[in-house]
């Protein structure tokens, strides 16, 4: 068994990292009052820590930011997920990896995760009302100030520093769930969706529940709210059950359907275990109308029985799903591909390529991607796909024309990789075609198309 890396490399990388972190830490002390201290992701921690003095809270607080994998190259905006208790590293890591998994399956959009580390007094920050009796020696009641901090300091900091889209999800566990339920009713601009995981609604003998229910039912802005409870956390189980019942009744009388409420109960979970499943289920609930986890392709029959008709039907069902999903969650709300009206985005068209190619349905592919080309005449990627299909069909002359168009349209530096790929495909074609160069006028044609003529 050979290890592909050497210890030497490991150690060098590590000490370089330590030097880097050290330099940043040295800067920390002198700069803390003026500017946030930023510690970029290390190998050990996949997040960036932003330490900043909070005038509202009167203490230094740290945000842990995790960017989506394609953040550096995409140029797009992303929804933000604000997640409390980021100090609990196993829990925070499980959250990060779950979000990554669900986003990779298109069940939720990729998101910027903003973990909020706790300050000196978690109970104070996360309780909307003072506590009677005191909980863990704390009287609490600093929740409104904490939400001011989130609204006026955390979100502006994140929005200034990263490419965020407006849509924001707020998620907290236990007392963090309690403050989430309070925020749902009192902060209509804070977040579009709130996931309250095992919220501590039992505090003060559930005195807050009627007010939470009334405030949420009267909220002026749309909301997705999701609450959870576990069977082995009796105080939460019973108090959240009552909240579920009352809130469901209260929002049923609202006709506009703008408050959406979902909830779950976990039959084998104690308090420490609910955060993991609650966040996954809550995000899936919030983004149910976004999800492309199941598309038209998933209901296709066995590969040997798929014909062009059934494949095109699946592709068009998938197109319709994309169009519906984009109406529910437009790019203006969550970032991502913009698309022509009533059409999938270019990226969504491109995702279907393997189905056509693996099934060798080249005729159907020409029809489908030909239509896509008419929707997006300036997309070099679609030209390249058409070129690939034509090569597979043996139509070299047409393929060369499509590849030439791709090159003509791929003029910007961002298309370097695409250009390289297309050139590599063109080379053997030209070599094999004595008059391959005669295809050149096609690029002039496609330029006209690109100019919209």
């Amino acid at each position, binding site marked *: 068994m050979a290890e592909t890396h050497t210890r030497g490399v490991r150690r060098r990388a590590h000490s370089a990292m330590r030097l880097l972190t050290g330099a940043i830490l040295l800067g920390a002390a002198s700069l803390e009052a003026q500017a946030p201290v930023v510690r970029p992701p290390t190998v050990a921690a996949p997040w960036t820590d932003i330490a900043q003095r909070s005038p509202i809270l009167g203490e230094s607080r740290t945000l842990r930011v995790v960017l989506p994998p394609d953040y550096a190259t995409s140029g797009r905006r992303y929804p933000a997920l604000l997640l409390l208790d980021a100090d609990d590293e196993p829990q925070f890591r499980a959250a990060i*990896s779950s979000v990554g998994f669900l986003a990779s399956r298109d069940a939720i959009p990729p998101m910027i995760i903003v973990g909020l580390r706790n300050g000196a007094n978690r109970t104070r920050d996360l309780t909307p009302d003072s506590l009677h009796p005191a909980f863990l020696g704390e009287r609490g009641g600093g929740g409104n100030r904490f939400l001011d901090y989130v609204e006026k300091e955390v979100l502006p900091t994140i929005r200034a520093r990263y490419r965020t889209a407006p849509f924001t999800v707020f998620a907290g566990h236990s007392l963090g769930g309690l403050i989430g339920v309070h925020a749902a009713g009192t902060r209509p601009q804070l977040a579009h969706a709130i996931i309250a995981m095992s919220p501590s609604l039992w505090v003060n003998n559930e005195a807050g529940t009627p007010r939470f229910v009334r405030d949420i039912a009267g909220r002026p802005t749309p909301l997705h709210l999701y609450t959870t409870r576990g069977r082995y956390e009796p105080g939460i189980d019973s108090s959240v059950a009552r909240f579920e019942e009352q809130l469901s009744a209260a929002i049923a009388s609202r006709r506009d359907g703008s408050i959406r409420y979902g909830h779950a109960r976990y039959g084998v979970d104690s308090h420490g275990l609910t955060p993991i499943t609650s966040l996954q289920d809550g995000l899936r609930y919030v983004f149910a109308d976004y999800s492309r*986890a199941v598309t038209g392709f*998933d209901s296709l029959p066995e590969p040997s029985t798929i014909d062009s008709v059934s494949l095109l039907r699946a592709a068009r069902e998938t197109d319709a799903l994309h169009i519906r999903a984009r109406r529910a969650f437009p790019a203006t709300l969550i970032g991502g591909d913009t698309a022509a009206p009533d059409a999938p985005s270019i990226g969504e068209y491109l995702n279907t390529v393997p189905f056509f190619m693996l099934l060798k349905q080249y005729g159907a592919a020409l029809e489908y991607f030909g239509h896509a080309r008419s929707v997006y005449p300036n997309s070099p990627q679609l030209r390249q796909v058409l070129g690939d299909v034509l090569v597979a069909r043996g139509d070299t002359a047409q393929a060369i024309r499509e590849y030439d168009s791709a090159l003509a349209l791929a003029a910007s530096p961002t298309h370097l990789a695409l250009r390289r790929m297309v050139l590599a495909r063109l080379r053997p074609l030209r070599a094999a075609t004595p008059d391959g160069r005669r295809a050149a006028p096609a690029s002039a044609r496609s330029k006209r198309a690109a100019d919209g003529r």
Partner: protein
Amino acid sequence: MTAPLTAMRRAVHWAACAALSLTASALSAQAPTAGGAVPDRWSVHQVESKALGDTRRLFVRTPAGYETVSRRYPVLVINDAQDTIRFRMAIANADFLADRGMIPPMVIVGIVTGASRTRDLTPASPGNPLDSGRVTAFLDFVATEALPAVRQRYRTTPYTVYFGHSLAGLAGLWAAATRPSLFNAVVASSPSLWWDGYRFQSVLADSIAARAGALRLFTSRGGIEADVDSSTGVFEARLESLRRAGGTRVRFSHRRYPDDFHALTPLSSFVDGLRAVFDGYATAGSEFQRINPSAWDETSPMLEALARSEAKWARSAREYPAAVTGEASRDSLPPEEVYLAGASFSASRNPSAALAIARRAAQMHPASAAVLRVLGERAFASGDTTEATAAFRRALTLARSAADTTAIRRSARTLLP
């Protein structure tokens, strides 16, 4: 039949993941060594496989603190580790469950299948357009090449858990049926029991039920993966009925996720599956969490929770001895943590219960500096400075490090000179 198409959708995902996977391998070369914390990176190893006739990659990820201790760890095999997003999800969720005491920390071994996946993971299926038929060679590779290489290089116990999804779930069931000594537990997420015209959905249940070695088994299926749902349902029903008739030693549980499609089931299946196959392992903490807040003022529910924790510990240590989990303390009394969890839970909720729990802890662990320090703290909080001083003095004599001593002196405040 959706599943072959699913394989195609996976291909789409894999194409997208290829770049990521390269990044992951590159990063693993810089896995940090400080404090032994290796969060979600892994080492990449190459194994020349005679069984498969080619070279395979393994990803090995050791638990936090691995370098600083000499103990051994059970092995968790995760198939299809080339899907690094899923592999990373598995690592983080295993860490979370271990942190909550639901499963032991494990050495995680990711097996990369890749290009020959359908062939590696399936029995022969003549007439199927997909490559097939090499599952026996693949399991030979796992049993005689991959795992021995890992065991030689890493400190492992013989206890081995397998996780596989889809075709890799089928391969897991195949292993459970044909190799009674390879895996102690198998989690088969949405297994491809539709394979070869549903030929194995009942047969595999029969052979698994009849196998010689003990086994813990978990299967799952999603409500929107038609053929997996139905065929795994048949398997479940068959194995359940054999179990009820007393015809098997296999400990079997299963879940169906009504809203889940094939690509999503691994997430819930991994967490639920590990919890299911480690059923009875968890001890510390959870018993205290189950106390209703309205009963926090009373001491007896706290002491009952402590008694239940002790009993749970005894059962857990019997079922998961040190030879399985590698945790040496499992062969002795309930460890300090069982008591310290209770004492810390009740500390602010019910000081007198906390003191009672700390006294019990000191009785069970009279030589533990940590326990005596906590007893000192609880006695001090209850106003008994005599008991507190005695406990802190004793703690100091037991302290094994400067850090212990500092912590004791800090807790003792003015009680110690």
